[in-house]
Each structure stands twice: as structure tokens, then as C-alpha cells.
């Protein structure tokens, strides 16, 4: 059995930021199922929002204006106190990352460069070309290395050790050695990322299964606003690799098969820089109404950068140019990029307050796996990197207070029992015949077909039926080998149990919410309904294993809900 003061699960930006803040005072163990530098934060492209006012056109920007844009972008579902905290902190967070070595792109006066992004009133997105996640994650990992934080790379979490009263640690699998190891700690922070891989078409990395959210849910922690799933307007057809919003921020156009810049019809002011929920719906509509381009890999719309010229593309969007060359064999300097909307971000997640606390004492969550909520029904581009670092840092003071105020007794027996349970469970997994990849593929198809951009009662009910059937089939899941080391098929099978719970919460939340708000769009309820639905959905696992749904109020400070036009 391992002992630490604090367990952090996840080596992306949120987990590393928390670890860096806690490691001077506490014995921190950071557990990650991949080496931290492989975490999905690395793939973020466009940038991180902070009202620095460095751009000549952003001189009048302020954190309050950043808050307003974020709240309006969220379709008024975000908790406004949380948004204000994030946007106020943003400025110091960006300077801190810069001081720690983050190589941001620069303006000619030597300040951090900022570009326009969707749904923002000012150019406030700080960036490093189109590799912003890459430079931020490297910087935080470098900081973690300088502080000699104990990192357990390629360790998977099998479950939380909790008794409903408190969290006592985790049961982990050392994947390289194949050993099941209980890890005991008074405080545990999850920073395990989003649930993109629940969908067939997703820009997310293969590791983004949402299993961390499922693990928390199974331990009795409520999840919030799970129905709010962001579909990014511009995923590359075929591989669904993300083409950053910065491509439009730098002036890229969306055009249909008639050569029309169709956003002129839908968002005459913001055009291509309307928020993602709106642009994705417009693209989907163009496709459904027959103005897309047909391709063996799917119907697509063009993202045209040609008018930007080679110099600008090479300077501002070099990563995008490489992705196009590598993955679809075209150069955006000469040809438009074929794109389609794809699942991209999880607005929902583990229910936390602005201090990263959950309903389970000793258990915290931050980053994409958490729902504070700062993104509400739709996240603005450039706010996810910000969320990870701000709330990774916020977890530091909350966990510090908890450690000072609580003397948590070690529950070694509970941990040992769970260890034995997992050893037995894994040993039996060779008996089943249902292969995890087949079940996951079916789930992904169901979710993309029935819980996508446009939703209705019939489709959502179908999805819930499919998920129930898959959950039953999961009882017969089986893998080729019970070896525990480097057995990816085994991990896929274990994670699938949690993924199914996550999928059920998404579909159930979506079926119950009879309105259209942000990324959640119901065909039968096409308008936002503040009277009945200006509230968060909370889903908790009932005693019989079935989900229980309840609702909580949205915190409004000074921004009264208004009609959302761009």
C-alpha cells in the first residue's frame, strides 16, 4: 500500500497546476494513465483568454467584459460568481505561466500576442502560434520536474476508496508492472479530462474516455449538466482532428457547396466568429439542407484560408498546415480544408463548487472532468485552458484548508478489500465473450447518431434504450488475457463500465431538459426557457444503480439573462 498526503489523478494542466501548488507543503503523488506530457492538454491549439489589453484593438478590454462574454456565451447557465473568479484570475495566471517560461507569441512591443476568438468582444486570446496547449503543458511539466514531484506515469485508477462519508484514496493499477496498488491519502483530486470518446466523431485523444467522471459517479458523487456537450465546428473529415478556431480568428471563411459564406445569413455581425454552438448548428443545417460537399468519409463544408496567404498561414497556423498535409494531403495555402462538426468538449462533469469541492469530503475535481460551472451550456474558445489552470490553482487552497482542518484516519481495511475485489474481478474477465471495442463502437455510434447537435425525444429515448442494452451486455464483457501489465484491452474493458454510466447521464440529462440552450438543441423545444430551465441538472447514482436526477439554481450576480444574438 502506498501513502501520500494528497493524490492527484491526471497529469494535464489542471493536475500539474494543483501539484505544483501543493508539493512544497505536502507529500503529493500524481497518478496519470499516460506520461503527463501525453495528456490531452497538449493538443489545445488556439489559446488562452485573459483581458491583458495587449492588442491595440483590445485596449478597452477588462476582466468584467471577459466575464460578460463568457456568461452570454454560456447561454446564461454558467454560475456568474465562478465566471468572475476565473476571468479576474486569468490575468495573473497568464503572467505566472509566462514567468515560468511559457513561450507565448509576441507583439512587436514584446508583450504577449492576443488574437480574436469566437464570442469575444475583444481580441483577448493569448497564444503561441497554434500550439498553445503544447507550450502551456510543457511549461507546467517543466515546473513539476523542477520541484521533483512524485509522478506515477502509466498508472490507471480502478476505483475510488470511499464509504459515502469520505474519500480515503484510490485503487490503482501500475500498468507497466501489472500490480494492483491501493493508495491511501486524506485528499484526492481528480483532473482526469473530458468524455469525448463517448462519441464516435470526436476531436479528442483516445485517452479521453471520461472514465474519471464515471469513477466519481459510481462512488456516489453527483455529476452536473452532462447534457451540455460541445461540438466543435471544424473537425477534419475522416480523422476528426481539430482545426483550431484560430483559423477563423485569423480570418478564415466557412463556405458551402454554392460558394456562399453562409454565416452571413445566421450571424451577420459575428460571422464565422459566432460561438461554437451556433456555428456548429449552422454547418449541420447547411449539410442537412444539401449544401455540403459529398465525400466517401462524410459530408463536409469548406474552411477556406487561401485569402490569408502563405506568410500568415505559416506564421500563425503552422500546426494546422502540418495537420492538413499529414492527414488529408492538402495544403491550406492552395485548397480549402474539408471540415465537419465533431464532439470536442465536455461542459458537464463532476459537480463542484468554485473551490473544487464535491459532495464527497476529501474528494476534489478540477479541469474538464469538473463542472463548476464556468462554461454553462456552451464554452467559449480559449476558456478551457484557462479553466484548467485557474481551478487547478484554486484546488490548492481548498485542499490546504482541508488538510489543516481534518485529521482523516486511514481506512486501510477498506482499501485492502477493494484491492482483493479488483484482483478477483480482473481474473474473471477472460470468461466473457463480448469484446469491449465492439461495445464501445456501438455506444459511440448511438451517441453520435442520437445525442448529437440536434436532439429530440425519440432519438434520446432510443439512445437510453441502446445504453441500457449495452449495460446489460457489459455483464458478458471479456478480454483475451488476464495479464494485467500493458494489457490495453483489459483497461478498455474496465473503463467501459464507467463510460456507460457517463453516456447514460448525458442522454438522460438531454432527454429531461425540454428547452434549447447553448449546445443542447431540442427540435421540439427550440427556444430557451428561463422560467423552467434556468437551472443545473444534477445526476446521482441511486441505491439500485439507476440515475436520480435533480436540479439546482444558477448563481446570478449582475448579468440578467437576455436574448443571445451575435
Amino acid at each position: 500500500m502506498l501513502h501520500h498526503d494528497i493524490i492527484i489523478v491526471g497529469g494535464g494542466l489542471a493536475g500539474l497546476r494543483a501539484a505544483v501548488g501543493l508539493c512544497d507543503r505536502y507529500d503529493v503523488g500524481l497518478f496519470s494513465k499516460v506520461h503527463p506530457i501525453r495528456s490531452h492538454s497538449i493538443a489545445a491549439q488556439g489559446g488562452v483568454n485573459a483581458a491583458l489589453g495587449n492588442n491595440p484593438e483590445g485596449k478597452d478590454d477588462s476582466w468584467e467584459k471577459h466575464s460578460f462574454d463568457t456568461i452570454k456565451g454560456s447561454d446564461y447557465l454558467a454560475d456568474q460568481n465562478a465566471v468572475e473568479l476565473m476571468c479576474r484570475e486569468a490575468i495573473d495566471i497568464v503572467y505566472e505561466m509566462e514567468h515560468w517560461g511559457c513561450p507565448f507569441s509576441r507583439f512587436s512591443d514584446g508583450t504577449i500576442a492576443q488574437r480574436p476568438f469566437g464570442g469575444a468582444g475583444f481580441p483577448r486570446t493569448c497564444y503561441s502560434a497554434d500550439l498553445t496547449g503544447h507550450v502551456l503543458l510543457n511549461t507546467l511539466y517543466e515546473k513539476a520536474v523542477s520541484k521533483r514531484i512524485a509522478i506515477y506515469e502509466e498508472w490507471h485508477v480502478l476505483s475510488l476508496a470511499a464509504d459515502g462519508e469520505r474519500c480515503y484514496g484510490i485503487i490503482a493499477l501500475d500498468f507497466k508492472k501489472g500490480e494492483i496498488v491501493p493508495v491511501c491519502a486524506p485528499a484526492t483530486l481528480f483532473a482526469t479530462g473530458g468524455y469525448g470518446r463517448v462519441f464516435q466523431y470526436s476531436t479528442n485523444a483516445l485517452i479521453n474516455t471520461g472514465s474519471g467522471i464515471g469513477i466519481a459517479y459510481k462512488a456516489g458523487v453527483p455529476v452536473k449538466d452532462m447534457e451540455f456537450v460541445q461540438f466543435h465546428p471544424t473537425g477534419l473529415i475522416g480523422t476528426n482532428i481539430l482545426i483550431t478556431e484560430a483559423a477563423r480568428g485569423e480570418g478564415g471563411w466557412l463556405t458551402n457547396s454554392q460558394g456562399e459564406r453562409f454565416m452571413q445569413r445566421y450571424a451577420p455581425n459575428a460571422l464565422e466568429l459566432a460561438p461554437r454552438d451556433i456555428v456548429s448548428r449552422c454547418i449541420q443545417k447547411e449539410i442537412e439542407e444539401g449544401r455540403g460537399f459529398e465525400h466517401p468519409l462524410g459530408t463536409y463544408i469548406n474552411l477556406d484560408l487561401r485569402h490569408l496567404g502563405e506568410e500568415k498561414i505559416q506564421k500563425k497556423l503552422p500546426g494546422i498546415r502540418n495537420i492538413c498535409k499529414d492527414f488529408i494531403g492538402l495544403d491550406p495555402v492552395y485548397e480549402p480544408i474539408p471540415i465537419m462538426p465533431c464532439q470536442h468538449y465536455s461542459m458537464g462533469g463532476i459537480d463542484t463548487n468554485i473551490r473544487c469541492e464535491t459532495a464527497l469530503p476529501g474528494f476534489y475535481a478540477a479541469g474538464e472532468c469538473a463542472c463548476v460551472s464556468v462554461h454553462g451550456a456552451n464554452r467559449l474558445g480559449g476558456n478551457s485552458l484557462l479553466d484548467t489552470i485557474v481551478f487547478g490553482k484554486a484546488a490548492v487552497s481548498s485542499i490546504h484548508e482541508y488538510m489543516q482542518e481534518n485529521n482523516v484516519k486511514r481506512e486501510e481495511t477498506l482499501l485492502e478489500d477493494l484491492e482483493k475485489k479488483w484482483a478477483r474481478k480482473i481474473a474473471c474477465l477472460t470468461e466473457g465473450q463480448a469484446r469491449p471495442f465492439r461495445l464501445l463502437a456501438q455506444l459511440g455510434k448511438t451517441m453520435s447518431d442520437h445525442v448529437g447537435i440536434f436532439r429530440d425525444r425519440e432519438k434520446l429515448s432510443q439512445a437510453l434504450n441502446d445504453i441500457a442494452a449495452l449495460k446489460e451486455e457489459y455483464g458478458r464483457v471479456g478480454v483475451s488475457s488476464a495479464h494485467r501489465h500493458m494489457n490495453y484491452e483489459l483497461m478498455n474493458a474496465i473503463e467501459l463500465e464507467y463510460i456507460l454510466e457517463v453516456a447514460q447521464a448525458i442522454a438522460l440529462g438531454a432527454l429531461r431538459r425540454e428547452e434549447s440552450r447553448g449546445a443542447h438543441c431540442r427540435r421540439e423545444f427550440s427556444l430557451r426557457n428561463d422560467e423552467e430551465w434556468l437551472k443545473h441538472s444534477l445526476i446521482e447514482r441511486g441505491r439500485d444503480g439507476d440515475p436520480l436526477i435533480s436540479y439546482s439554481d444558477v448563481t446570478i450576480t449582475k448579468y440578467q439573462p437576455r436574448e443571445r444574438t451575435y
Partner: protein
Amino acid sequence: MIAGVTYTFKIFRYDGKEPENAPRFATYLINVLPDSLVLSALLRIRDEIDGTLAFRSSCRSAVCGSCAMVMNGKIELACRTQVASLGKDTIILEPLPNFEIIKDLAVDMTPFWKMYERVKPWLMRKSPVPPEELRQSEEERNRIDQFVNCILCAACYGACPVPARDPEYPGPAALAKLERFVLDSRDERPLGILEGLNNENGLWGCDTLFKCIDACPKEVRPTDAIVGLRKALVKHKFKKLLGMVKDEA
């Protein structure tokens, strides 16, 4: 529908936990579209044919650095290599050289990360920082650009001829990372620390064969870094000789 083509994948198999079983190549026949990526084929082989096959992957978009391996003799990322680009209907996949094998195509990267940590890869400051950002000109930022782009996939370490004969040699990626900080206008590390690399196991160990440059999927040129560090070291030693810098701890 576009017709698929049947490819023969011969994949290196070995389990470090079962050293009594010698390494072997397992053969898998799989029908894929020619423009499919090697990683997609690998995922399908693991899913549909052999669930015990071990390899790493994550982002699928050549940014996370998980899936560097040897494909028909060439080191590349599996996620961005099209099956057809390898030019043969038999594709041989092997793990990165210069590492111990954990299982199949997954190697033990510990020596790589040890060398990364050895060069102290973080920004060092002596002077206080301002409340706002440290200013840096566009030109100064561009100077470190290629080294910032490194994704730490270890393709260069696998391609380098030196680690095989000298396990103490830091390798191309670690030295490129060091140069990224030495060249950063904001970094204030004492250049005396380069003296620890002033030997055949360090900066002078490189054979300048440019294998690392050929292997890099991100157009980083580690050899440039090593040459740059050698120059910085020589310059520092001259300055020290002339009494222009004090001895540093």
C-alpha cells in the same frame, strides 16, 4: 465505397515479464484503405485480431508523442504515417531502438526522461520578475521556435547512434531542450553549468550524423542545438579565461 487492400503486418512481439520467450514477429493480415494510418491499422489489429498487442497511442494527430516506432526501417509516428506511404504490402513494425522493451512496441522511456531531467529543463531567473510579462521581442521568440516545437517522442533518441555505445550521453532531445532555455532571452542560468557537459559523454559525444534531424517528425534540428551549445560553451570558457565571468557555483 473505396476498395481496401490487404496488407501484411509483421509486428515485433516480446514481453519483458517473460524473458524466457524470445522476441518474435507476429503476422497479421488486415484489409485497410491505402490512405489509412498505421495507427488505425494497429488499433484494428488489437481490437479485431489480437487483444494482447501492446503499443502506445493517444492524440492521433502527431502532437502527443506517444507512438514513435520503426516502420519498415524508418522511425516515425504511427499516427501520421499512411500505410501506402511505406511503399510495400508487407509492413514491419518494431519498437524504438536504444530502449529496453516493456511489451511489444512499448519501450521503457526511463533513460530518455532521466536525461531530460538532467539538463534542468525549466526557465531559470535570478532577477525579479515584473508584475506583468517579461518582454521578449518577436525575433527573440523566433530564435527558440524550432526547439519549443519538440514533442518529446524520442524518435531522435531512437535514431541516434550514440546512446547504444554510451548510456551517459544525454541524447538529441535533452540537448535541444537545454538549447531552448539557453537561447531564451528570459533565461538566466549560469552558463558554467555547460561545463558538466564538456566531455565525450556530453556535448562532444555527438557524431554529427544528423540522424536525429532525419527522424524528427516536427522539423526540430537537434544537431543545431548541440553545435549551438558547443559554441556557447567555448565562448563561456574564453570569457572565463579572460576574467570576464566569475566562477559560478
